[in-house]
């Protein structure tokens, strides 16, 4: 299991670094601007109030634009509202490709002919996915924490870390869903496509659901609806976190069951029939 863990993590290192640095860079670009905005709050407020509510909805709570001028509100509107989408792309690629990529390239057939159980292989790789997700969040947090030291925001690195915990939960649930779909669908690209649509729909519907009550019922089914963002700076919403973790873990469990019971594909194989369990 340790060999699978190390091998998978080693292969993911480029992705981890790329997306982690991407999140960090976003924070490093946004955080220094708070000082500028804080100096001219009146102008900032006028600008925010000129925005249509449909636009503001994508940045969080639209009922109180004055909150945007606080450090917490600023981080939420300009940084944490977008991070799940950015890091979510890593989650989709890493989750859908965790096993299906090797399988479709014909490598899994040979790996599985070695003395390793399917469960050990699966668990080793899922642990690497979890570690990789944490690493992306850690690199993102580290970049932001460094810049935060020189900013006028009165937020400590420890507090900031709290706000990254809901980001990790979002990454986990998208990665887990992508993994499950990659086990059910005949090709990794289908899993990537479906979860990609879900990620975008989740962001859009959850944002617009704040304006349109008719959408809120659908939006409540989306992972983004349970995302805390910068609100986590003043305390984590454990209910949402554990709920997302439970759904993510359920997806992983179903993916394991499917992987343990189905044929390993080789290059060129795969059909929609793979959904049906064996009659044996």
């Amino acid at each position, binding site marked *: 299991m340790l*060999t699978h863990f190390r*091998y998978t993590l080693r*292969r993911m290192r480029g992705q981890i670094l790329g997306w982690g640095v991407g999140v960090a860079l976003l924070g490093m670009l946004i955080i220094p601007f708070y000082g500028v905005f804080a100096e001219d709050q009146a102008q900032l407020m006028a600008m925010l109030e000129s925005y249509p509510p449909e636009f503001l909805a994508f940045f969080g709570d639209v009922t109180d634009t004055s909150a945007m001028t606080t450090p917490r509100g600023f981080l939420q509107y300009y940084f944490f509202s977008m991070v799940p989408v950015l890091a979510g792309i890593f989650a989709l690629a890493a989750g859908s490709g965790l096993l299906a990529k090797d399988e479709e*390239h*014909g*490598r899994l*057939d*040979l*790996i*599985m*002919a*070695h*003395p*390793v*159980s*399917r469960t050990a292989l699966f668990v080793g790789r899922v642990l690497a996915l979890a570690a990789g997700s944490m690493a992306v969040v850690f690199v993102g947090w580290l970049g932001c924490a460094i810049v935060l030291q020189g900013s006028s925001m009165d937020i400590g690195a420890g507090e900031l870390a709290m706000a990254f915990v809901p980001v990790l939960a979002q990454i986990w649930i998208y990665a887990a869903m992508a993994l499950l779909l990659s086990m059910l669908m005949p090709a990794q690209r289908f899993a990537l496509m479906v979860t990609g649509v879900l990620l975008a729909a989740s962001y859009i519907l959850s944002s617009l659901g704040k304006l349109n009550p008719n959408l809120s019922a659908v939006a409540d089914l989306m992972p983004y609806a349970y995302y805390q963002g910068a609100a986590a700076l003043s305390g984590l919403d454990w209910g949402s976190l554990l709920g997302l973790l439970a759904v993510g873990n359920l997806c992983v469990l179903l993916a394991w069951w499917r992987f343990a019971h*189905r*044929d*390993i594909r*080789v*290059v060129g*194989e795969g*059909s929609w*029939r793979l959904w049906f369990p*064996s*009659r*044996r």
Partner: protein
Amino acid sequence: MAEQLALSVRGMTKSYGKVRALRGLDLDVRRGEIYGFLGPNGAGKTTTIRCLLDTIRPDGGSAHVLGLDPRRDAVAVHARTGYLPGELHLDDNMSGEGQLRYFNALRGGRASWAYVRQLAEQFDLDLKRPIKNLSRGNKQKVGVIQAVMHHPELLILDEPTSGLDPLMQQVALRLIREARAGGATVFFSSHIMSEVEAVADRVGIIRDGVLVEVAAPDSLGARALHRATVRFHEPVSLEGLLSVAGVRLVSQDDDTHVTLEIVGDMSPFVRALAAYPVRDLQTARPSLEDVFLAAYGHTQI
């Protein structure tokens, strides 16, 4: 009897949708022998191997590998087996050495690295080069090395010489013989009759998912199929040639140009041909598919 068998398959079936890849396969491979698994493309060779290794699950029937059920004891079976897939795909981002060290780690580090280096030298393979820069033949060498480096009790090789040049094919076949000499059982599939004849103790012939015959390699030579294209100086009557046992007319462009098929020993045909005014003679060994058609016809099994 069962403990003398390295592989035992009974009534194995496997379908991919409407395609029936295996249709009740029965197969026995004795411990310590080299068993050539011969069949044309699409006959079910790779499906059989993948069922034996539990990478795919048969729809019916049973299999035992080294006395173990591969479905229940897959890890134990794999620990004692070396496998080379028919279509080898390695991690392009690794070097040959990195790939082999990874496979060795999956086996708990059982292989001796000195032996790996010795094998690489035999194959004239640079292990430091990235997989992505290796030719197909060199990748195949990495595949062969990973299959034998831990001295397995059972070697399952799917088209082991595929992609290798003739010299390296001989090295691979020598490794197969060495493995057998060291007590291993070798089960290898091929669609190249001469290769199977060269190393196998017994040959199983599979067609349309059913084992149609188990034979000694020598007997394959007796029914070897040749195709001869003959051009004569002048129009001739073919009666003398066609009366030779095993000779069949395939096509005749005119009275001076014919194509014939000869099953078995060529000598009687060559002797009969000596009486003709031959201008040109070309012979070729046809594909295994053609051999199968000659041996078993078009009948559904």
